[in-house]
């Protein structure tokens, strides 16, 4: 069965979605990711969707779910690399993905996670 690879960079887990998502794949990604957050003690999750030309309500909800799950496990989620056309479609559909942080690319996403990690430690 195909799986979406999860890469670890420091305390951040990087997930690059490059294929069409379907229910099974989404479920296995949620399973794998939550397991990895716990086992790797990850502080952040980066989800790169720059390869996706179409993002529908299903993927939108899945991203929201993953973000919520990660938050419970004390990891920050950032969605990066959304295409302009995808952003317009999502907004027109009324899905503005509240509760999900976004960044332009992986680099920016890493910066964002680093900053919030620093702030978290200061508290």
């Amino acid at each position: 069965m195909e799986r979406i690879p999860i890469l670890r960079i420091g305390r951040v887990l990087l997930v690059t979605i490059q294929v069409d998502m379907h229910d099974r794949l989404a479920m296995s990604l949620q399973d794998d990711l939550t397991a990895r957050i716990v086992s790797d003690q990850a502080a952040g999750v980066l989800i790169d969707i720059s390869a996706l030309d179409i993002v529908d309500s299903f993927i939108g909800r899945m991203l929201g779910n993953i973000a919520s799950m990660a938050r419970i496990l004390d990891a920050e989620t950032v969605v990066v690399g959304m295409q302009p056309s995808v952003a317009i479609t999502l907004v027109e559909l009324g899905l503005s993905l509240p509760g999900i942080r976004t960044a332009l690319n992986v680099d920016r996403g890493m910066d964002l996670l680093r900053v919030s990690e620093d702030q978290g430690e200061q508290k």
Partner: protein
Amino acid sequence: MSSIISEIVDKNQHQLLEAWMHFQREKLGNRQDRISDAQLRANSEQFLASLRTSLNSGSTNISTPEWARTRELLGDLSSQRATQGFSPTETATFVFSFKQALLAALQARLAKDPEALVQESYKADELLDQLGLYTTEVYQKSREQVINRQQQEMMELSTPVVELWEGILALPLIGTLDSNRTQIVMQNLLEAIVRDGADLAIIDITGVPTVDTLVAQHLLKTVAAARLMGADCIISGIRPQIAQTIIHLGVDLSGVLTKATLVEAFRLALKKKSLTITKA
């Protein structure tokens, strides 16, 4: 069917043309600066020749293929006149003044047979009315094309995205925002965000005359789309009246950063990027 008309057009071509030219000159009067006499004559000759061929086919329905050449000719003429600045009346005069010439010729030919005269006049009338209406239709269409093109150009002119600083974009909006424009504005902004790697965008609405619920909704959409791309938006240039309208309409802008002026917005943007401006 309209054999008498086609016969007259066939045989009296020269007289018809002269009479027609006379009527055209009379009607166009002071419009002769826009079109030369030679040009007018050439147009008229072409039209007469193709009318003759079409009439000889025996059909009087101008939407049949026999009339294709004549329609094409009239179409070209109308769109040409539309761009030259002729009024619809002046354009239609081209065909309608020919009616006068043709009716006069019919009268001369059928003076002894009033019944046939009425019948033939009616036919000629109907035929030329069709052609005249066709001219007006084409005229209208070419005017619409001009308007559409201008709209398109205005759309492109009025939605520039400028880079104020590394990573800070400004989008000065001028004119009313409708769905079409919002779409273009959004697209331009998002593409600029990707191109310049910007993470802050200032949308300045000083040039937007009125903000109603629809415009506000479009603004919020743009902000939401930019946020999905990982860029924060600041809305600036909100005039006092507009602030009042927004609140009276019950539009919720609480989720968006707003500033009264572009200066304030830029200051906030610099602060967010931990930049300061100092005197040298």
